[in-house]
C-alpha cells in the first residue's frame, strides 16, 4: 500500500537538493565576514602598536597614530548614551507599564517605527537643523551626540520594552493585588528583573553608534583636528569619519593605515558585542523563574 513510487522517490531527491542549496546559501553568508576579518587582520595587523593607539596622526594623516579619533569616538558614544538611555528607558517604561492601548499610544508606536526607518543621512540633516543651528550648539560633540541619540532612540526603546515585556505579567498582578502602585511594582520587581536585558540592548546600541559616520559628519566630527576634545562644545575627530577620510580624501596614505584604523574600529564594536553576549549568557544562567 505504501510502496515507494517514482513520485515519492523524486520528492525525496528534491527535498535533499533543496536542503543542500539552502545550507550553501547560508554558508555563503559567513563568507563576507570571514573575508573582511582576515583582510583586516593580515593588512591592518602590522600597523597595530601602542604608539598607533596613543599618538596623534602626523604628516597630513599619512603617518602617526589615531588617538584623537579614538578618544573622540568614546566621547561621542558616551554623550549619546547619556542622552538616549534616560529618554529611551523612560519612554519604554511608559509604553510598557503605563500606557493604555489608545490612539495616542498607537501614534507613538508608529512614530517609533518610522523613526527607526529614517536613513542616517536624514538624521544628519535634522541634527544640523535642530542642534547645530536652532539650539546653537554649533558643530560640536554635543550636537553630534544628540543626533546619534535621536537616531538610536527607537532601538533603545524597542529593546528596553522587549526586556520589560519578558517579565511575566503574573508578577505585576501579584504586586498590584497586594496594594503596590505601578511605580512600586516597577522598582521592586520589573526593573530588577529586566535591567540585564535593558543593558544588553544598550551595549549593542553602543557598538552601532561607534560605527556611524553620516550623522556626525556635519554635526561635530572634524576632518583633521590633532587635539583631544576638552568639552562637549568642542569638535572632535572620530574613528568612522577618520577611516572614511584617509581612505578616500587624503593622497599618499600607506596601504596598511586604513586597514589598521578599520581593525581598531571593528575591534571596538566586536568586543562590545562580545561583552553583551557574555552578559546575556551569564544572566540566562541566573534565570529567576
Amino acid at each position, binding site marked *: 500500500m505504501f510502496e515507494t513510487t517514482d513520485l515519492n522517490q523524486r520528492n525525496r531527491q528534491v527535498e535533499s537538493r533543496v536542503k543542500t542549496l539552502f545550507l550553501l546559501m547560508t554558508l555563503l553568508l559567513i563568507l563576507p565576514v570571514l573575508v573582511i576579518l582576515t583582510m583586516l587582520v593580515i593588512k591592518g595587523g602590522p600597523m597595530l602598536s601602542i604608539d598607533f593607539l596613543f599618538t596623534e596622526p602626523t604628516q597630513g594623516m599619512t603617518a602617526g597614530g589615531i588617538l584623537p579619533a579614538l578618544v573622540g569616538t568614546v566621547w561621542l558614544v558616551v554623550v549619546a548614551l547619556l542622552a538616549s538611555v534616560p529618554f529611551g528607558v523612560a519612554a519604554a517604561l511608559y509604553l510598557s507599564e503605563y500606557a*493604555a*492601548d489608545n490612539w495616542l499610544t498607537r501614534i507613538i508606536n508608529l512614530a517609533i517605527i518610522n523613526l527607526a526607518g529614517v536613513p542616517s543621512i536624514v538624521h544628519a540633516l535634522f541634527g544640523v537643523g535642530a542642534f547645530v543651528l536652532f539650539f546653537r550648539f554649533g558643530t560640536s560633540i554635543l550636537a553630534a551626540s544628540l543626533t546619534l541619540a535621536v537616531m538610536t532612540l527607537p532601538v533603545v526603546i524597542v529593546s528596553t520594552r522587549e526586556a520589560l515585556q519578558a517579565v511575566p505579567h*503574573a*508578577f505585576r*498582578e*501579584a*504586586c*498590584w*493585588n*497586594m*496594594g*503596590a*502602585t505601578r511605580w*512600586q511594582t516597577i522598582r*521592586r*520587581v520589573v526593573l*530588577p*528583573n529586566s535591567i540585564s536585558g535593558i543593558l544588553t540592548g544598550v551595549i549593542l546600541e553602543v557598538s552601532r553608534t561607534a560605527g556611524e559616520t553620516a550623522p556626525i559628519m556635519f554635526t561635530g566630527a572634524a576632518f583633521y583636528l590633532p587635539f583631544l576634545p576638552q568639552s562637549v562644545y568642542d569638535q572632535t575627530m572620530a574613528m568612522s569619519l577618520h577611516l572614511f577620510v584617509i581612505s578616500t580624501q587624503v593622497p599618499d596614505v600607506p596601504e596598511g593605515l586604513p586597514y589598521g584604523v578599520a581593525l581598531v574600529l571593528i575591534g571596538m564594536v566586536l568586543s562590545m558585542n562580545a561583552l553583551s553576549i557574555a552578559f546575556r549568557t551569564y544572566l540566562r544562567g541566573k534565570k*529567576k*523563574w
Partner: protein
Amino acid sequence: MVTDEGRTAVDGSTRDGAEVKLSVRDLSISYGDKTVLSGVSFDVEEHEIFGIIGPANSGKTSFLRALNRMDDFIPEMQVEGEVLFNGMEVRRWRNVYALRRRIGVVFPLPVGLPLSIYDNVALSPQLSGIKDKTVLDETVERCLRRAALWDEVKDRLDSLGSLLSGGQQQRLTIARALSQEPELLLLDEFSIAVDPVTTMRIEDVLKELKQEMTIILVTNLVQQARRLADRTAFFLSGELVEVAATEDLFTGQVQDARSRDYVEGRFG
C-alpha cells in the same frame, strides 16, 4: 461544616447578628460588550469561609477581580453595581492601595515573585512603609509559620521564592497574602497546581485562618467547598444560580435543580 441549625438559615441568607464583611449588590461585569457576570447579589459574613463553585468561564475569577478593583488595570473590564467592603463601596475608598492591602489574593497558579523567600513575605510590609528589621523578621517568620512553610524554608530564606516547588510556592503566596494582615482572603482555585498532600495542609491552614479573617474560596473541586465552606454560591455562565448553606447544597436541599446536578457531577 455547618451543623448548628441556628448558624445558617436554610435559604443561605446570613445568620442573624453576624457582621457582614462584604456585600455585593446587583454586580455585573463585562469585558467590552461581553457580559460575564450579571446581577449578582449576596453578603459574606465575617469569619466565614464562603465557597464559590461553578464550571470554567462562569465568571468566578472576574468576580474576585471586582472586589479589590483589579479592573483598574484591565481597561476593557467594566464593573456595575455595588461592592461594599466594611460597609463602604470599594470605588469610594479614597486609598485604593490601602483597600487592596486589606484583601489578600491567592491565584490558581502559584506566583513566587523573583525575590528571595524573605522578600516575598516582607515586600508588602515594606511597601506600606515598615523598615524596622526586627518587625520585618518577626512578620516573615509568623506568616511563613501560619502558611505551614516555615520549617521547609527557614534555613534558606535568601534563596529565590520563584524557584520553590509548586506546592511550596503556593504556601509562599499564602504567607505573602497574610503579611498584608488581610481582613478578607480571596483564594482562586488555589489547588490547581498543587499536590494533594499540600492541598490538605493548606486546607487545614484555612480552617485556622477563619478565626481571624473572612475567606472567599473559589474552587474547581466541589468536595473542597464541601470540606471547607460554611456557605457556597454556585455560579453558572455569569449567573448566580444560588447561595446555600454548604450542607444543604450537598444534601440535595437546593432551590435550583442545576445546583444538585453540578455538585453531583452530572455536568460541568
